[in-house]
């Protein structure tokens, strides 16, 4: 089986660590040749920032452990750095108001895209709605900005096209990863502990990911539960 690579944004790791389902990475890696990759900026956000205080320290340590074990790789170099900055410069010119750029994106988020280009993969795990909209439906993001900011925000399609540069990015979230984990039986130990344990577990995990920050709607979660466990 050929190697597959998926780049993670910090949002997905944060959700999964908060819900204590990071073990999924270990199990998925045992199952197939998949590389889970993050950039140094993401590592800083999910580990270094968490270790600075006490509240999220253990959540950060859980991720650090996966890095130490080689389950999650941290990859960075000058080429990725340069491309991150280049992408950031373009991305923050996509939206504007009266000739002032409305900057929606951070360098760390661009590092994930630069890393994808460097590793020649099209798979990104990102729980953050705004980032996903920027990549997949920038016009919808423009509508959201205009409506919520109560200001006419201008979207430059040409600059966005320059940013995307012909690449197609496939984005999944922690809820999809959890759904896959459920499908391959990783939540099996919970099946018999309560009535309809399978459905309850899946619903519980999806909701826990949602309240931990994964951008997912109630309807989407209900649809997954219905598809995977009947109702």
């Amino acid at each position, binding site marked *: 089986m050929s190697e597959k690579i998926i780049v993670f944004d910090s949002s997905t790791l944060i959700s999964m660590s908060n819900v204590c389902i990071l073990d999924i990475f270990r199990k*998925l890696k045992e199952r197939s040749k998949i590389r889970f990759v993050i950039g140094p900026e993401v590592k800083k956000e999910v580990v270094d920032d968490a270790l600075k205080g006490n509240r999220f320290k253990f959540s950060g340590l859980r991720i650090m452990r996966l890095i130490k074990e080689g389950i999650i790789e941290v990859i960075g170099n000058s080429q990725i750095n340069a491309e991150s900055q280049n992408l950031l410069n373009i991305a923050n010119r996509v939206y504007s108001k009266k000739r002032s750029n409305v900057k929606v994106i951070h360098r760390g988020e661009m590092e994930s895209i630069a890393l994808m280009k460097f590793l020649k993969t099209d798979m990104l795990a990102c729980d*953050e709605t705004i980032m996903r909209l920027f990549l997949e439906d920038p016009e919808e993001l423009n509508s959201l900005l205009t409506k919520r*900011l109560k*200001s006419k925000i201008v979207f430059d399609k040409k600059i966005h096209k320059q940013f995307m540069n012909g690449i197609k990015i*496939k984005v999944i979230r922690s809820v999809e990863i959890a759904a*896959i984990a459920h499908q391959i039986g990783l939540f099996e130990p919970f099946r018999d502990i309560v009535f309809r344990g399978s459905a309850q577990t899946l619903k519980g995990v999806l909701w826990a990911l949602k309240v931990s920050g994964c951008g997912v*709607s*109630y*309807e989407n979660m209900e649809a997954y539960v219905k*598809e995977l466990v009947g109702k």
Partner: protein
Amino acid sequence: MDKKLIKDLLQVTQTVEKFVKENNISGIKNWSDHIIHSATIYQDKYSIKTAVLVYALSNILGDDRFKIKFKKEFNTFKKRVLTNLKKAIFYLEHKNIQGFETEMTDILRAIAKADAKFSEHLGIILRKAKIVKGSWMHHHGITMGRIAKLLGITKWELMRKVGSMKEDIPENIDRLKIAREFFGVKNV
């Protein structure tokens, strides 16, 4: 410096000064939302600092238990805030944005210099204000990474808050299909 931005800041500061005098807590809170639009569009430190401070002030001044427990410190703090706000208004009326920032920063210093327990309480409120305002900026279309950097908070803190908000963006992509293809898992 955008003229509209200065006008917005002046309007907010004048209104908040009036509400602080009147102890109109809900009024103060509403006006922190008013400045968040400017904060999100311009992402300038003045709007952001003002939005966070004003929200924090609404929580500090609205905390009746704390007012009773730290009566002396609270009254000193309120007097100082009103002095700072008055000077801030003066600077904005004269389009002196640096002077305005100095006064707003001074309110933060008042928090740091207060009695240790009072200061700790105010510090917590200030951090909470950043997270609340940050979640609103995210709701208005800015990524969490950018907000975390602007406000000096972590994505961890922000995600917890954002998770409690309703997600109403329609989902048009079959992400489960993408995930299944990637992980080599068949349809149910």
